[in-house]
């Protein structure tokens, strides 16, 4: 039970923050907090790949975009013109077709986002598998460039293809009505609900990741990070381990992208840009690489400040500075035990 104590503390903090915004009347902050939370889920996925398994990935934003664009495309197709086709009756028999009114009063028949969620997870997972099996054989610089190349491919396809909205992105994504009385959307009435739902997803992800890290597979990953050859010699199936963790990271990013797209009501090509991938890397680096709690805390902090516009014109530069300074002075990250101990001794004086 001890390993879940931080998760409970986190849940408590989440509630306290919501109550604080309620008391101070700054409920609007919850919007950016919710968005940061979705970004943090993608960062947690990268933390597993980069921090725990030691495989650099500069294409995390590509998977985020795959999740987001899958639902943006699928849930904006209008099936009302396709009634009677076999595709229509197939989805209809599964109960996956919903109707909504456009602002002009027209009725649109669209695919349920539940189907899009499954599609997003499958597409991201299969892409990660197809990319990971050959590419994760590479190491170091080669792996970095290959994953960055994947991210750029996603970006170029999105920018250059009509169904992805080219440079404009897709903007009329309907809300995701998960169950009666609750939907994933940016409407003010659902702000508190969305905030708690995003944290619920984070907490589920955290519990799964904590279990993974403390399992046999998690120890294999740590061995892999230390030395791939040594792990191989100890009987760890390194190729399978790396691919598996890469798929987990990709699926987490895709899920984050999926919910973010419904929350924002749209997605644009900038979500797949190299700079977004680099942001995830800098969050993981500043959080202490193999440290999901560090990634969580720094990810929330940096994304929230960035979304609030605190960094102004220097939004991207801040992440660049973080990367450079962290690597020069604290290659083990900012959030780690030693830092807390040195802060402690600062106050108590040296023993």
């Amino acid at each position: 039970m001890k390993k879940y104590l931080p998760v409970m503390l986190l849940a408590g903090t989440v509630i306290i923050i919501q109550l604080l915004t309620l008391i101070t009347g700054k409920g609007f902050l919850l919007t950016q907090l919710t968005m940061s939370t979705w970004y943090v889920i993608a960062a947690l996925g990268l933390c597993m790949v980069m921090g725990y398994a030691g495989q650099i990935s500069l294409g995390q934003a590509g998977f985020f975009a795959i999740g987001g664009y899958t639902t943006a495309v699928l849930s904006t197709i209008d099936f009302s013109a396709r009634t009677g086709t076999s595709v229509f009756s197939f989805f209809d028999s599964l109960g996956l077709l919903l109707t909504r009114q456009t602002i002009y009063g027209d009725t649109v028949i669209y695919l349920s986002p539940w189907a899009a969620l499954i599609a997003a997870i499958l597409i991201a997972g299969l892409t990660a598998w197809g990319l990971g099996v050959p590419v994760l054989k590479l190491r170091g610089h080669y792996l970095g460039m290959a994953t960055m190349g994947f991210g750029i491919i996603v970006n170029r396809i999105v920018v250059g293809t009509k169904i992805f909205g080219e440079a404009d992105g897709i903007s009329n994504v309907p809300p995701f009505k998960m169950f009666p009385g609750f939907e994933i959307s940016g409407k003010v009435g659902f702000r508190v609900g969305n905030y708690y739902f995003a944290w619920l997803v984070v907490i589920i992800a955290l519990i799964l990741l904590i279990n993974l890290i403390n399992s046999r597979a998690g120890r294999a990953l740590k061995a892999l990070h230390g030395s791939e050859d040594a792990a191989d010699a100890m009987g760890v199936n390194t190729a399978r381990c790396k691919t598996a963790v890469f798929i987990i990271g990709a699926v987490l990013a895709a899920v984050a992208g999926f919910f973010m797209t419904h929350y924002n009501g749209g997605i644009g090509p900038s979500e797949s840009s190299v700079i977004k991938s680099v942001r995830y890397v800098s969050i993981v680096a500043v959080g202490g690489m193999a440290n999901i709690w560090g990634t969580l805390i720094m990810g929330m902090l940096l994304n929230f400040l960035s979304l609030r516009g605190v960094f102004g014109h220097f939004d991207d530069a801040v992440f660049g500075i973080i990367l450079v300074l962290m690597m020069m002075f604290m290659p083990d990250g900012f959030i780690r035990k030693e830092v807390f101990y040195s802060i402690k001794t600062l106050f108590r004086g040296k023993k």
Partner: protein
Amino acid sequence: MALNQILQYIFSGITVGSIYAFVAIGYNIIYNSTGIINFAQGEFVMLGGMIAYTFSNFMPLLPAIIAAILITAAIGGLIENVFIRRMRKTSVLGMIVITIGLSILIREFALSIWDEQIRALRFFTGNEISSVNILGARISPQVLWVLGVTLVLTAGLYFFLKFTLTGQAMRACSENPTAAKLCGIRTDRMVSLSFMVSAGIGALGGCVVSPLTQTHYAMGSDLAIKGFTVAILGGLGNPMSAVAAGILLGLIEAFSISILPMAYKDVISIIILLIVLVARPSGLFGSRSASALKDY
């Protein structure tokens, strides 16, 4: 396709390929002396074009270009002295992360100096509309400048690395740094020099293509991955074969435009990168057994 049309594609391919070759040569020189892939290599090209543009507003073209090359080389040396030298003992992961961080910083720095506008250096001879007729293909005289500079640079680099004492010392450092040190070569100076040379070469490339392809603050990351593709195609650590590989990739891209939409041009070269990385990491011209011994 008519002959003159094919020629047109060939010339545009060679021009684009030359700029990739400039970036790839920069990668190779730094890789040889440090074992680092400098993700900020594309930023040097952007800096070269931007600085030369600014200077060309109040001085003739040649001194402006020379100033741009010298300033960019100084920035390259500064980066090595301030950041890379302290990082010698960190992991490859740390090296990748810091060079990416630097590339973002340079780009944001350029954004705050030169804003978001696309700029172009003026043409070396003639202007936008002047052209030379070669076998029915009409090409800009700037294309000839690009080809000429690429040729001169390649020959000059070959001469420098093969016959001058400094060039030989640089090669010795890449073969075996410890042995080079024992022979009395200041290896840390050679590393600084290699950063300066590769930044300067990048800046030169940025200047000669600026009239044709324009210069934009965010052009670096695209050039970085294309240049890397070329460096890998030619075999990492071999600056000479990078020129051949660069022109090859340029030609592939130029002809791909005639079949596929323009937007997918980058996708093709990155897919080539992925295939080469996985199937033949030693490159087209590199030795397989030699690359198996290298540590990436």
